[in-house]
C-alpha cells in the first residue's frame, strides 16, 4: 500500500482551507457580527464598535489560536520523529506542563514591573519546558527507540507534579496576579494584548523556522541515531537543537494560553495520512492544519454553550483523548 503524497499543490490547497477556517473563526462569536461585517471592516466602512469587536477581540484571539495550533502541531511532529514514537506530544510528554509551571512561577514571583512584559512569561515557560526535557531525555538518553510505556509514565508523573505546583501557586498566590489564569491547566484562549500576541508569534516563527530547516534531518533521525549518524547527521547536537526549538514553540503556545492537549498528536497523524512522513512537507502541513484546528476548536468553545465560553482545552481533550486511546490500542496490538 502506498501512502498518498500531495507535495506542493497539496500544501497550497491546505493553506487556502486553513485561511478559510480562520475567516470562519473570526466571523462567529457572542455578538451577532458575521462575514458581512468582517468584509466591511476590511473595506473600511464599519462603525468603530464592531471594528473593535472584530479586530481587537476576535481577530487577535483567532490569530493567537492559530499561532498556538501551528506551534503545538509542529512540536508534536518533531518530538515524534526524534523520539521515534508516534504517541509523543508536547502535552503527553509533560513539556507543556513544564512550560505552564515556568509561566506560573513567573506570574507568582516576578517583580510587579516585569509581570506585564510580553516576553517574560514565554521565556519563563521556555525554562520550564527545557527543564522537563532534561528529565525526559535523562531517562530516554537519546539511545535507540524509547519504550512507549516509559515515555508515557514519565509524562504522567511530570504532568501530575507540574499540576500540583501550579495549583499551589494559584491557590496560595496573590489572587490579583492570577486573575485570568485560572483555566491554565485546561488551556483557554482570551483576546490577547497585541504585544503578547506579537511575542508569541515571533517566538513561534523562530522555532518553526529552525524545525523547518532541520526537516530533512528529522526524516533521518526517525530511522534511529546510529543510522542517522551513518547518513551524515551530527546526532547529539542536532537532536538538542530540534528538541529545544520544539520546546520554544511549545512554551510560546503555553505562555498566555495554558495547556491545550492533543493537538500535537492529532494533527501530525492526520497530516502523515494525507501527505506521507517526509518532514519537508509534513512540518508545513502540520503548521497550517494546526492553526486551523485550534482556531476552529476555539470557535466551537466560544459558541457551543454561549454565552458561557468553554476552555478550548476541553474541546481538544474530548476529541484527542479517544484518538490517543485508539492509537495506543493499535500500537499495543502491533507489538
Amino acid at each position, binding site marked *: 500500500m502506498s501512502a498518498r503524497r500531495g507535495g506542493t499543490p497539496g500544501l497550497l490547497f491546505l493553506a487556502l482551507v486553513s485561511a478559510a477556517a480562520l475567516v470562519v473563526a473570526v466571523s462567529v462569536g457572542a455578538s451577532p457580527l458575521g462575514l458581512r461585517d468582517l468584509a466591511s471592516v476590511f473595506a473600511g466602512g464599519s462603525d468603530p464598535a464592531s471594528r473593535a469587536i472584530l479586530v481587537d477581540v476576535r481577530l487577535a484571539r483567532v490569530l493567537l489560536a492559530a499561532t498556538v495550533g501551528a506551534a503545538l502541531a509542529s512540536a508534536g511532529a518533531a518530538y515524534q520523529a526524534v523520539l521515534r514514537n508516534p504517541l509523543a506530544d508536547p502535552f503527553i510528554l509533560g513539556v507543556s506542563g513544564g512550560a505552564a509551571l515556568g509561566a506560573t512561577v513567573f506570574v507568582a514571583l516576578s517583580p510587579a514591573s516585569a509581570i506585564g512584559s510580553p516576553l517574560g512569561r514565554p521565556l519563563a515557560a521556555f525554562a520550564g519546558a527545557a527543564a522537563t526535557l532534561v528529565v525526559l531525555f535523562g531517562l530516554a538518553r537519546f539511545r535507540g527507540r524509547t519504550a512507549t510505556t516509559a515515555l508515557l509514565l514519565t509524562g504522567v508523573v511530570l504532568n501530575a507534579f507540574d499540576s500540583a505546583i501550579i495549583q499551589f501557586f494559584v491557590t496560595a498566590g496573590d489572587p490579583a496576579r492570577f486573575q485570568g489564569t485560572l483555566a491554565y491547566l485546561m488551556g483557554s484562549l482570551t483576546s490577547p494584548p497585541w504585544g503578547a500576541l506579537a511575542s508569541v508569534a515571533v517566538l513561534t516563527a523562530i522555532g518553526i523556522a529552525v524545525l523547518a530547516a532541520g526537516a530533512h534531518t528529522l526524516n533521518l533521525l526517525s530511522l534511529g541515531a546510529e543510522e542517522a549518524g551513518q547518513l*551524515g547527521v551530527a546526532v547529539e547536537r542536532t537532536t538538542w537543537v530540534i528538541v529545544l526549538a520544539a520546546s520554544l514553540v511549545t512554551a510560546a503556545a503555553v505562555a498566555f494560553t495554558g495547556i491545550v492537549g492533543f493537538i500535537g498528536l492529532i494533527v501530525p497523524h492526520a497530516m502523515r495520512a494525507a501527505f506521507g512522513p517526509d518532514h519537508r512537507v509534513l512540518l508545513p502541513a502540520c503548521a497550517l492544519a494546526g492553526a486551523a484546528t485550534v482556531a476552529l476548536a476555539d470557535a466551537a468553545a466560544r459558541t457551543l454553550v454561549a454565552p458561557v465560553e468553554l476552555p478550548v482545552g476541553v474541546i481538544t481533550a474530548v476529541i484527542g483523548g479517544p484518538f490517543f486511546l485508539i492509537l495506543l490500542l493499535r500500537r499495543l496490538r502491533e507489538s
Partner: protein
Amino acid sequence: MSAPALGFSGVTFGYGRTPVLSGLDLTIDRGEIVGLLGPNGAGKTTCVRLASGAVAAVSGRVDLFGDDVATLGARERARRVAVVPQETHPVFEFTVSEIVRMGRAPHLGFLGLEGPKDRELAHGAMRRCAIDHLADRSFRALSGGEHQRVLLARALTQGTPLLLLDEPTAFLDIKHRLVAYDVLVRLRDDAGPAIVIVSHDVNLAARYCDRLVLMRAGAIVASGAPEDVLTRAAIGEAYDVNVQIGADPATGRPFVIPLSPR
C-alpha cells in the same frame, strides 16, 4: 595521497566490560572487495560500527582514507563511507524511493532539498538493485529480502568510495544473493569503491571477493586470497567445525563443505 580506504591500527573496543576487539590491525585498500568472515561474536559488526563512526575505539586508531575517523565530522564521514545495516525499522510509512533518496543526505545543502541529479542517482541505484518497480511502495510493507535490496540501493546512492555491508544477503533468496554480489562487483569495476562484506556465506564470499579476512574472538585468524584463507585448519579453528574443502565448479575457488561441529 593513496592512503588505504580503511585502516585499523591497534584498535581495542568493548561493550561495557566485555572486550570485543583487542589490538586489531586491518587494512582495506582502495578498490578492493573484502569478505569479512567469522563466527557469531567475532567482532565483524563491531568493525563496521567503528569504521562508520557509530562507536569510537577505546584505544588505537581507525583511519578513513588517511584521516582519523574520530576527527571527521558526521557529514564528511558519510561522504566517505556508506553502511548497509542488517535491518532497519522505520517508525513511519516512508516509501522505498524516499528511503533510497536519504542516501543523498550528506551531499544536500542547508535545507536538505534534492535536485534532479540526486533523484537521478537514486533512480539509477534502484535500477541496479532491481527494485525500481517497488519505488512507490511502503518500505514497511516489504519482505526482509526486499529491505536489504533497498538498503543496498540507498548505500549506492550515497556514492561513497567505501561501502560496508553487514550481512547484506542474510535474508535474500539464492537468485537475489547472486544479483547482489553481481551488483557489487560491477559497481567496483565501474566506480571503483572499496567494499567490505560481512558474511556467513563463506562460499559466495570466496567466489566474489578479492580477499578474505577470517576473524575469531576479536582477532584475525587468517587474511589473504580465498585459496590461502579457506583451509581446513583455518576454518576449523575459526568456526570450531570439521570441514572438507572442495572447488567451486564455476570459478575453481575453494568451496567449503561443512561436516560436523567439533
